[in-house]
């Protein structure tokens, strides 16, 4: 195998090789033997995430948490529509912040 790049794939010790192969850290795996030889030759695997990927993942988590909060407080809006009872101001503030935090 001609190795051009090696990147850490996850926290379990797997490597992504040449961008297309995920190689397990097992000496029974012939591809892992090549990775070991590549490292022994003085090369270093790249980290799991680039800065852009870290930012993407962080935003995805934020989006998920924000949508979950909005969903959990939707009943205030329904109650207001049906009974005219006001939405607590802290909920209104937090919902606005959640909407702002979501970036598609």
């Amino acid at each position, binding site marked *: 195998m*001609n190795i051009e790049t090696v990147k850490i794939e*996850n926290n379990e010790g797997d490597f992504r090789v040449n961008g*297309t192969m995920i190689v397990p*850290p097992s000496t*029974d795996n*012939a591809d892992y033997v*090549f990775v070991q030889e590549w490292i022994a030759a003085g090369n270093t695997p790249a980290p799991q995430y680039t800065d852009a990927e870290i930012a993407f993942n962080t935003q995805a988590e934020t989006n998920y948490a924000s949508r979950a909060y909005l969903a959990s407080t939707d009943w205030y809006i329904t109650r207001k529509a049906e009974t005219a009872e006001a939405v607590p101001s802290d909920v209104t503030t937090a919902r606005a912040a959640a909407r702002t935090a979501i970036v598609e």
Partner: protein
Amino acid sequence: MALSKVNPNLVSNGGSRSNIIINGAMNVAQRATSVTGLGANGGTYSTVDRYRFDFGSTAGRLTATQTGITDLAGFANCTKLDCTTADTSIAAGEYFQFVQRIEGQDLQRLAYGTSSAKTTTVSFYVKGTAKTYMCELHDAENTRLVQQQFNVTTSWTRVSLTFAGNTSGTIADSAALGLYLNFWLHAGSTYTSGTYNANTWKSQVNADRAVGIGSFFSSTSNELFITGIQFETGSIATDFEHRRYGEELLTCQRYYEIIADGGRANDSPYFGVGQGAKSDQINWYYDFKAEKRATFTLAVSTVSNGYAAKTHSTTKSHSTLGFTSVHQSLHSIMGYMTNIGGVTEHTAWQMQLNSASAHIAVSAEL
């Protein structure tokens, strides 16, 4: 009837499955039927299943092809090697081997490491540019080797080489590498400067491994065609053991299996069922057709939006897929499509290829 009347060619040497070699007739080529430019340092499985190309420091390059043949009765395919870049300045450490690696548990019938170690015979059909090459059995566990030269002519010839049993060093009954069947086709003085001791098992002496061979890379006119490779117990080469295509394919899939290939005619674009795992990840599941030999590699071609997860109204796509090896069995894979966003936990998804270039395979080669 006197035993002397029995035709030895009708006597089975090793039981109902006498040939230890997988895909000896070169009929299965899951990866590709032709690959150009082979020769870079290292080992690679490129075309016909189970055959590995090992190169060391050569400038020579070749094209390997699964080639249909009509001039050898009983065989439809062979592996053709075509030298495309010559290497006539051979440095000491150069080599090129055409290899099949064999699991230890498939070699127990040889009784290696005991006084009952079996005589074996390697046979194959070969033609090409006239050369002398070397066939080698290499006991991977005990680093003991034995060699025999063979000649290639321009006409198909069945070469039959009988090897003594190896009485020193057992091979473990496991899925690990037990033995290499090596064909030396190019070598520098590191491997050719010693003494040729035909059919003599001994500890590894590199200088003795390829003594007297020609070089496949000596000219771009050089070709080699090979098929019908058989490795069996006994001192005679019995008729080649032809197997059904489906049986051979399934045997090969223990080592390499295509899960889905967008460019393969009649292949399903679907590769399993997906489940929303978290907000930015869908996990997908696929049961293998054959149990894998060992912890496997997942190979996924990178294609923009080449992999999709769909519901009736929603499509998520990505350029690649991943997996975490610690969570796998040898029977199935749980992979993931991640960094996609907008996924609800526990939702079901239909996983499918979105491009003719998309390709998913697993490898557990030796």
